[in-house]
């Protein structure tokens, strides 16, 4: 699956960022047009093979709530996978943001972001890497849920996440991708996958389908 993110204004001439994402990931529909979004949501429900009306309704409402939540801000896409790994069910979430960097100097953006992430202290490890032709920053964190994190006040699952910031060549923007999973035993699979997705980043001048 190729995911395209629009840079700047939504016109056919505007360049887009393209990421190669495995087809196991299902994208949460975030289109701004209600009809298009609803159609995509229904399609997703079909793909998921849900037959229980309560489940379908709940997922539909939840998808819509997420779409509303993401209708502004820098997060431009979120997708989830529900797969079987080594005989057990496994799930992960891929979330993508486009973030202005105020510089076309990719090295400066990477070094600055790495230092900012280290100083912030939220990440257990922060590294600068070369992902193919892209300099990038990776930060890994484990977020144990705490009482109060959920509306019911209960303790939820621990989520491990890795964020990758990849400056977009030739633009004062960076793609920020986060892979998050409660399935800690499958972490290596998802970590490798995230780095591969980040490595696949390309800027295209054409106008393929895009998230939003």
């Amino acid at each position: 699956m190729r995911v395209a993110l629009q840079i700047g204004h939504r016109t056919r001439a505007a360049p887009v960022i393209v990421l190669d994402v495995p087809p196991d990931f299902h994208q949460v529909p975030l289109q701004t047009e209600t009809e298009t979004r609803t159609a995509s949501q229904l399609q997703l429900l079909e793909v998921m093979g849900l037959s229980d009306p309560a489940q379908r309704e709940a997922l539909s409402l939840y998808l819509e709530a997420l779409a509303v939540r993401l209708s502004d801000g820098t997060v431009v896409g979120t997708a989830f996978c529900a797969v079987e790994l080594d005989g057990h069910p496994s799930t992960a979430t891929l979330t993508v943001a486009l973030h202005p960097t105020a510089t076309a100097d990719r090295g400066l953006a990477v070094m600055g972001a790495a230092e900012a992430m280290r100083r912030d202290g939220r990440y257990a490890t922060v590294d600068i890497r070369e992902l193919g032709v892209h300099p990038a920053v990776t930060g890994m964190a484990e977020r144990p849920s705490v009482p109060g994190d959920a509306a019911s006040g209960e303790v939820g699952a621990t989520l491990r996440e890795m964020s990758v910031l990849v400056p977009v060549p030739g633009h004062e923007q960076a793609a920020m991708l986060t892979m998050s999973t409660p399935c800690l035993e499958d972490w290596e699979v998802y970590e490798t996958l995230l780095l591969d997705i980040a490595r696949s980043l390309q800027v295209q001048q054409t106008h393929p389908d895009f998230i939003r």
Partner: protein
Amino acid sequence: MLGFDPTPSDPQRLVVLSDALRKIVQALVQSRTELSRMGRTGSVWDGPAGAPIATLLRRYSLQLSALEESLVDCLQAVDNWREGAEQRQAQIANIVAAVADVAGDAGTEDRRTRLIAAARELGVDHDRAAADLALAFDELSGAVEQIIRADDDLAGELHRALVALTAAIDDWIAAEAPELLRTAIALGEVAGLTTVISELVGIAALGRNPGEAVGVSDIIARSPGSHRLIKALRRQWLDVAPAALPEATFSHRQSGGLARRLSDRRPVHVEVAGTDSAAPPAAASGGGLLGSGE
């Protein structure tokens, strides 16, 4: 037996020296390779901020390359010396054995003299080879001196470039870090919220035992970050409502038409200030919509 050693050399020590030189060459090759990667596409040094440092280090890399060549020549000379020395020492051992054979035999004086002369000739070859070895080390020394002469301010230039880079990074952080971290937090939150979908479709069991029957609303309510979603949605609608809803001006004074229509449907009375006084008072219903009117 000869009365002198024409080929002095300790092969074992030469092996140690050769190994040490080989390791230095390998380390230099590795360092030079790493340095030459700087500034290529995909490197963090590929940009205006990092370029001065990459340029300096690439220049240093070229000098390391010259040093590497001298070291390789040196290593070759040591290996040649060791190989030659072993051959010459073997030849000397043969000569010594031959001299021992003729020892005490009065008729073999000429042969003994020729053998000793051959040993001396081998000694001359040995000294010549030693001079070649010394020359290789002299050239190595010269290469090191050249590096020192060529880049006497490398440290200073690197320092200035690093200070400039650090300042650029600090400026970038001051301007951009808060928003960047907000984006990172938002991504984490959205990821947590999206993970709930997997639980809704039965793949994950966040905070509960697999198979445990939990209602959909419970799942959403106990998911990490769910309260943030609820808060965010409330904030979202508060932002949207004033702009999206038509503004109430109450400019049409239509004798309480709206109030009457509402009162026909349910027992709620609406008082619009300045409208027909015939409308029933809001207080009678225990609530209602109060408009400011004109």
